[in-house]
């Protein structure tokens, strides 16, 4: 479904991605792990057009999307939940969901109801301003808003960041449910153990390069991963 070949991203003199390649197949949950500053968010921004790749190819369903403008990605079927959630603070929960469907021409009333079933807490908070939601509620709203465009590929940037273990648990459960509805998920995480238990495959990123990749179950037992990300001595 998604294929990245030797993509290079530079911020001025700094090279953030030194030619990375990766692949996401339809129906999968693929996770991208890495330390702070490894280039995970840069990769995700590149996949949603917010950051241009200077070299390499990005193919989505066989079409090169490297030069597509960011506002055309929802129409393509790619939706990005950015780092830090970026909820519209002065809009209510409902208005935020409305904005998620901005690129759709058809009626999306049913979709809002679906979101309220998937995230019951949002239904209780429907008239509340986005800026007044708790961190966990904001994360749920960000995911729901991204789903409003009915993406085929959902890009998630550290959904567990700053949340309590209980909430992380339920968010990961929901990510599993989202895949069940047929949406492919590309998940950036630092919370390696939970991400790997949920994902089918994983990539590990170090200093702007893909260091290695494998099936998630193998990575979970890989001494390199256990040492660095799961806090065990090798």
């Amino acid at each position, binding site marked *: 479904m998604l294929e990245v070949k030797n993509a290079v991203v530079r911020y001025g003199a700094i090279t953030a991605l030194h030619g990375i390649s990766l692949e996401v197949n339809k129906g999968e949950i693929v996770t991208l792990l890495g330390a702070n500053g490894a280039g995970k968010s840069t990769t995700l921004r590149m996949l949603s057009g*917010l950051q241009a790749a200077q070299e390499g190819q990005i193919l989505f369903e066989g079409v090169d999307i490297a030069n597509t403008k960011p506002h055309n990605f929802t129409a393509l079927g790619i939706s990005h939940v950015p780092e830090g959630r*970026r909820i519209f603070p002065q809009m209510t929960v409902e208005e935020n969901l409305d*904005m998620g469907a901005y*690129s759709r021409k058809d009626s999306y009333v049913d979709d809002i109801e679906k979101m309220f079933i998937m995230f019951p807490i949002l239904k209780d908070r429907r008239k509340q301003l986005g800026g007044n939601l708790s961190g966990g509620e904001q994360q749920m709203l960000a995911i729901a808003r991204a789903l409003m*465009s009915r993406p085929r590929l959902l890009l998630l940037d550290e959904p567990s960041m700053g949340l309590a273990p209980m909430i992380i648990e339920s968010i990961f459960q929901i990510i599993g449910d989202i895949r069940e509805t047929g949406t492919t998920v590309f998940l950036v995480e630092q919370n390696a153990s939970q991400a790997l238990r949920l994902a089918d495959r994983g990539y590990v990123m170090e200093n702007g390069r893909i260091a290695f990749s494998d099936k998630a179950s193998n990575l979970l037992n890989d001494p390199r991963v256990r040492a660095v990300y799961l806090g065990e001595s090798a």
Partner: protein
Amino acid sequence: MNLPFIKKFSTKALIILISSELAAVVTGPPGNGDTPWVGFHDSITQKASFFGLFVTGRWALFYAIGIISYLAVHFFKKLNSNNSAMDSLRSQYSSVAKNKYFKLAAVLVIGVLAILLPTVITDPFWREAMVSQIAVFVLLALGLNVVVGFAGLLDLGFVAFYAVGAYATAWCTGALPMPPIFGSHVNPFFAIPIAIILAMVAGVILGIPTLRLRGDYLAIVTLGFGEIITLFANNLTGITGGAQGTKQVPHFSLHIGPLKYIWGLDPVPYYYLVIGFVILFIFIFYSLEHSRVGRAWTAIREDEVAAESLGINPLKYKVMAFAIGAASAGFAGVMTAAQSNFLTPATFTLALSINILVLVIFGGMGSIFGVVFGAIVIQTITMYLIHTPPAGYQPPDLYIYIGALLVIMMIFRPGGLFPARRRQRADVATSSLENSNG
């Protein structure tokens, strides 16, 4: 005893006292090198008149103004917080209809008052000011509100679009050295669409290269654009007439079959014409605010990156905001050119851009009702001070008064006199959060 209450009360009184006395000192008589304290002393003790109503020491006068402004703001806040508390309780969708009727009624009442106004106001100064200094500024504030209030773009050179509209009118009617397109002595009515379109084109031309910039950078570029337009008007003597100004711009006139009417020196017919267009622009801007375009503007204003990744093209909507805002400024330019019959570049200054921005900030960024009201209030105060200056008032003092008013406003009512719905709701939301925590 209720000590916390007294403490809170006296803190407020102290703040009002200090800020009023500061205003008294900065607007007071200057000292001189030999007796530097005299200016300070006189600023406090000198007698002054309150708009000619009563005479008292300056310190007391300014303190009174401080208390009155505080009470006014406090009262408005109460009114508004009641409204918006209800607003947040009511379901957004079910209340729309009810709200609409209330708004419609309010608008009708104001409309009737506006129509009757010239029968009440007979002083020629005020009849003139009503058109050229108040209604035209309402148009300008409405336009800038689209840019600053709706799309959240700080434009410090808005006067440029006003100038384009005015000079376009002069051009079409043959008042410029540059030959007009449709022969000379064209009725300014025909200039209206051309002036509006040219102002909008200027918006697009300025917008496309600069709206990629954000925040401070955009403000600086727009500031420069405003200055460039004035410089053009000043220096392209062969096209604009230069610093000497234009030739005579004709008045509006109507010749439809047997109907013949010429707008002359009497401002009242101009008043009705401009009110008609004010209503038209309010209607257009209100519809836009509540359309897909308005939602895109709000999203961009709140988080441009999020808006972009949800499928909104920020550049497109920002350029649209510039062009649409420029339209009403362009029309304001037609009015000014046709009514005053004569243009010079000296009208279109940076100070005027700032003046328009003050109207928008004072009235409430993003609130159509607010900016109309703000423009009327500030321009009326300005005109009053020019018409009947209080004892000791010097024309440059105006900016000190307006500045002080704005500072007080920002302290007590940062969203403006009538804050936009969103900014208002933020108030309620934070206070309900405080309640639930405490």
